[in-house]
């Protein structure tokens, strides 16, 4: 009797529990991520296949559900989140689908930072026929992935979008007070003529390899909203790859077998590219060690050890292992004391132990920067004379000499006081969680304190840091927003962005107001790209002012993080390979050598 009752109750309890489970399950979509999601996805993919392939009989059955390892390239380190937009005009940080610009949409030119040359891509050639006319010839036989021809009209259409919509990033070239491109004319199917008023040659050259050309026949009917901020699912481009599918943690690209460029540049070997987003560095590191990822562009601390032990390969076999991708610059808020004093700023430059940042914070994965801030690929624009006179290295004695010469005195706490006797207490910041930079600002603070300048390292949240950066409420902070470029103007345009506004969103965060340097940067933008001597002279003048006034301090070069494995794919670009390709999948770097890497890759033969 008793046991019978008990078992009834046991049953009750169990059924209640299982009901709980069922209700819990019912509140959310089914717990098995496999089943229903699969059905819709296959249907969706079938639809996508129809759109992106020319073959009308393409069935989902033919699309393999398991990728062959030897045909697939696994990469990581480019995506910061799930794919959300395939709009080539959605600027960098929004587009989590690296490859949209580069693999799908292409450019008139490519640029190789290693050789410093613009090479025609969609273009066959481009010449300045006079000071205000640029004549562009397109290659013959260009096609979109839907089979339509890519013509001069598409180029004209793309540039004119900037004339219509101020929200597009290249619009100021064609619209508003600073416009300098007057008209774009399609002369015939393969010839485009650009007429200028007062061309910014440097910027235009940069735009030639950064503006993605979109198909007029599909984009002409799109609304302003679709064009400026739309997600553009099912992108149709002219490039070597097509967007295949994606999930929370991956994007899959499949080779465009009908790519017009296969005969010109060569067919890229990987049939499929799977771009993986890892949620943390340790996961990425594990995947690299396991050989699940062929190319990782994540920053992985300690990669030097792994490279020495032969787990991974890197561009250089020895320190710094990585190419330099951008310059980490310490911006000083020149609107507040004592950083409004050039002597103090220069003293600070001598008080920072960059060697420790390189050796300790980065374990030799980076290089110390040239005081001019220019990347090694642009070192021909470093003015040797200016550097010899005004360059700086870590030298606390020199820092002390400059400070004392300018009337700063040491207090009882061993820290310098301003000439007016007020105490100096400054903060150096970077976003919390950016571990390499957090280490770096610790070094900055420690070495500055050692030199008698009271600096503390503080790490606010990214949001707070960014707001302080743009509204100018920081003391000193790190920034590296100028990418590899064809022109030294790109960096100086970031460092000396003007006019000074309430919100400085893209440069000159320290709000250094100096009309002379602004004029010099504007003049540099107008130097012809062929006039190397003119560019050098312009840079020398800017560097002279910059190093005298020291409104910001270039410290080290962040790396083009790349660790790759030769297990499945080989012929990666390295120091010794003689290739000008860059081993990277970062957005904005495909046209700088990322695509070239794909073209040069070779599968490792399987036994």
């Amino acid at each position: 009797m008793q046991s019978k009752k008990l078992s009834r109750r046991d049953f009750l309890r169990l059924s209640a529990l299982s009901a709980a489970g069922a209700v819990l399950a019912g509140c959310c979509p089914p717990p098995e991520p496999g089943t229903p999601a699969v059905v819709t996805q296959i249907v969706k993919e079938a639809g996508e296949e129809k759109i992106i392939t020319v073959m009308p009989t393409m069935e989902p059955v033919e699309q393999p559900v398991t990728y062959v390892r030897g045909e697939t390239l696994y990469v990581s380190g480019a995506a910061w989140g799930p794919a959300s937009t395939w709009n080539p005009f959605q600027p960098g940080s929004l587009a989590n689908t690296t490859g949209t610009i580069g693999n799908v949409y292409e450019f008139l030119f490519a640029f190789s930072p290693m050789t410093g040359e613009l090479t025609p891509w969609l273009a066959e050639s481009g010449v300045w026929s006079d000071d205000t006319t640029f004549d562009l010839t397109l290659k013959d036989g260009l096609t979109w992935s839907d089979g339509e021809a890519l013509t001069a009209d598409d180029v004209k259409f793309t540039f004119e979008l900037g004339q219509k919509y101020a929200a597009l990033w290249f619009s100021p070239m064609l619209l508003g007070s600073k416009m300098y491109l007057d008209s774009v004319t399609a002369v015939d199917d393969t010839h485009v003529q650009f007429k200028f008023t007062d061309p910014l040659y440097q910027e235009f050259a940069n735009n030639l390899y950064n503006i993605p050309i979109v198909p007029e026949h599909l984009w002409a009917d799109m609304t302003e909203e679709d064009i400026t901020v739309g997600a553009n699912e099912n992108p149709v481009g002219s490039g070597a790859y097509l967007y295949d599918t994606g999930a929370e943690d991956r994007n899959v690209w499949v080779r465009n077998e009908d790519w017009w460029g296969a005969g010109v540049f060569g067919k890229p070997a990987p049939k499929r590219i799977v771009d993986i987003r890892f949620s943390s560095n340790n996961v990425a590191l594990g995947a690299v060690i396991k050989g699940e990822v062929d190319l990782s562009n994540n920053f992985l601390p300690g990669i030097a050890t792994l490279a020495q032990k032969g787990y991974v390969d890197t561009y250089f076999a020895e320190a710094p292992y990585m190419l330099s991708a951008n310059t980490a610059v310490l911006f000083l808020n020149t609107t507040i004391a004592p950083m409004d004093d050039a002597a103090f700023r220069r003293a600070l430059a001598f008080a920072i132990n960059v060697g420790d940042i390189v050796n300790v914070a980065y374990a030799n994965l980076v290089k110390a920067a040239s005081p001019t801030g220019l990347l090694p690929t642009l070192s021909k624009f470093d003015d040797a004379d200016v550097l010899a006179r005004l360059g700086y290295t870590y030298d606390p004695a020199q820092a002390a000499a400059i400070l004392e010469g300018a009337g700063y005195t040491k207090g009882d706490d061993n820290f310098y006081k301003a000439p007016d006797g007020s105490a100096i207490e400054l903060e150096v910041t970077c976003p919390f969680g950016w571990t390499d930079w957090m280490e770096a600002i610790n070094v900055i603070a420690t070495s500055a304190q050692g030199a008698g300048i009271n600096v503390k390292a503080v790490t606010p949240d990214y949001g707070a840091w960014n707001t302080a950066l743009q509204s100018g409420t920081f003391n000193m902070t790190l920034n590296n927003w100028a990418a590899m470029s064809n022109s030294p103007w790109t960096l100086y345009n970031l460092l000396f962005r003007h006019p000074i506004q309430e919100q400085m969103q893209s440069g000159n965060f320290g709000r250094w107001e100096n009309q002379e340097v602004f004029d010099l940067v504007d003049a540099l933008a107008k130097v012809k790209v062929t006039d190397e001597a003119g560019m050098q002279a312009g840079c020398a003048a800017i560097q002279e002012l910059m190093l005298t006034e020291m409104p910001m301090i270039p410290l080290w070069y962040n790396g083009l993080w790349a660790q790759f494995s030769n297990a499945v794919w080989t012929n990666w670009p390295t120091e010794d390979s003689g290739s000008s390709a860059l081993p990277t999948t970062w957005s904005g770097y495909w046209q700088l050598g990322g695509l070239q890497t794909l073209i040069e890759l070779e599968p490792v033969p399987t036994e």
Partner: protein
Amino acid sequence: MAVKGHKLCCPTATYGGERLLRHKSILIDFQDGGNVRRYFGRKLLIYALTFFLAVTIDWLIPRFMPGNPIANMLSRATVNVENAQVMYDYFARVFGLDLPIWQQYLNFWIALFHGDLGISVYLFPTPVTTVLMRAVPYDAFLLIPSILLSWYAGNKFGAFAARSKWLDNTISPLGYVLTATPYMWLGILFAWFLGIVLDIFPIAGAYSFQMRPHLSLVFIGSVLQHWFLPFASLFLVGFGGQAIGMRNMIIYELEADYSHYLEALGAPRSLIRKYAFRNAILPQITGLALSLGVIVAGALVTEVVFSYPGIGYLLLAAIQNQDYFLIQGCFLFIIIGVLLANFIIDIVYVIIDPRTRRGMTGETA
């Protein structure tokens, strides 16, 4: 607790084992539907209030974060000073952040009842509901089995361990270690040892990076394989806690007067343990309800460790990007999940604990 009603019982042997054991509790069936309705009505009112407050806090908290989401979104995006303001105004309008704050709050509730959680800033222009619908199945798949199984197995095992000195001496310390282990740490250990050193489990993703989702045994196998390590880390930590709790409760109950009395009457040990178990299970259920929040938080970090595409990583990224709408959405799901689970536990409680039912009638009798 004062006992009212005519069914007041006395601990006499004639009532039989069960009645005897429940000398403080009286079985009163649901004689009065009104009371049950009132009981659940009151509960539901509390849940509704909690929901309202939690969601309001959920709405408020991201807005207290220093910084500006649109400025962050555009910070690396705009190349030209000239069009920065144009884009800023546009996005402020898109996200409704140009309205006065009270209006934003009202709009939020109105949209919520239309099932609209807004557009994600971080994954612009994807709607938050779409983002969550992709992620929540993974969370359910991870959380429900690990919570239920760790609770069930932990209790069974704790009760079992309490019986034997040998087991107790070996298992209890292990349980304490497990329950004190941070989820993330156990996850990293697993990933390193089972994933990299032994290379028997994958360390990232929800299914193989070599597959596209389809219905096949291979794919389901891959899903389970990727699910196992995050599940195991959640399961083990939960298991340790439940086992320790149960073991302590059982020992306490076995020392209670009724156990000794029953023993003196000559009842078999298995019967005594059975009753002890049933008395001990009640605090364990309450404990489960209380710990749900911790488990969910643990699942979030576990997902980050294993790159498992649930809302854990989403939430982290949403906070870093000040994505008000995605933060709200993630927390909304957590709030709903935890409230719902608590409500279910309330129902379970009524079914398994007669005192709750007596309480319903008792107060009105």
